[in-house]
């Protein structure tokens, strides 16, 4: 599973993307592969389930989350170490995935995706018969 974009960075460093409107951030992710599924966890704090779009098409998994500003636009920050904005990241999934059974949940600012492997991609144990 290769991802197309780098990690989330602060806007000052210029590693954010400008798409749709405004600034987009890249969420930090954990990607774990198990025998029967791939689990993807993405840190997307400060949004709601209805504002998250997950798309899987032609082996490309795309996550887009809209994040509303939490402070008034003119807020004078004494310290501003991170920016707040929408999240976007996409991944190329080489493994065959059963797209109809993908599930997603959002809790404590973390999006968890379960990508079940297609039947053909799962390891299968072949029992060896003993012939007498």
């Amino acid at each position: 599973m290769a991802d197309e974009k780098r990690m989330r960075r602060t806007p000052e460093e210029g590693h954010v993307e400008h798409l749709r409107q405004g600034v987009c951030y890249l969420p930090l992710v954990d990607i774990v592969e198990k025998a029967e599924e791939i689990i993807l966890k993405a840190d997307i704090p400060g949004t709601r389930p209805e504002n998250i779009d997950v798309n899987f098409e032609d082996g490309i998994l795309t996550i887009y989350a809209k994040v509303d500003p939490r402070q008034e636009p003119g807020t004078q920050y004494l310290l501003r170490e991170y920016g707040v904005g929408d999240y976007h990241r996409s991944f190329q999934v080489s493994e065959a995935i059963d797209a109809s059974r993908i599930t997603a949940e959002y809790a404590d600012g973390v999006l968890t995706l379960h990508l079940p492997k297609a039947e053909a991609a799962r390891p299968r144990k072949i029992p060896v018969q003993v012939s007498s």
Partner: protein
Amino acid sequence: MARGPLASRDPFTQLRREIERLFADVFEGRGFGPPPWWEQHRPAVNVWEDQDSVFVELEVPGVKSENLDLSVMGSELSIKVHYPEEKLEGATYHRRERPVGDFARVLRLPTEVDPAKVEASLENGVLTIKLAKAEAARPRKIAVATR
């Protein structure tokens, strides 16, 4: 060495900041900027204030309230965050970017705050701390008497 009220007290961080500031000056404000937060071993914060309160906000996705430890003394706010680690049997990690373990930070606030009037709320991975300024630190309107 001049430093703001919220500057880190870690001497190495201070030194790095100074060096970065020097470079930033040389390159007309186009410095290297602060390192990304996952390299800093501390949670990144946003801080702002109004007349009565100081607000501190942190993004702590995946952290439950029992994994947060906040304390206030004088004008210092201490924040400890524990990111739980999941153990998965028979699994292969392809990416592991999300933080795990303990992160701590002490912030020197711009004013004294009232330790009895601190509210913290955690919502969707965003921790917001509202600290009421101490009575002495609040602006007071002075009525001008006319004769």
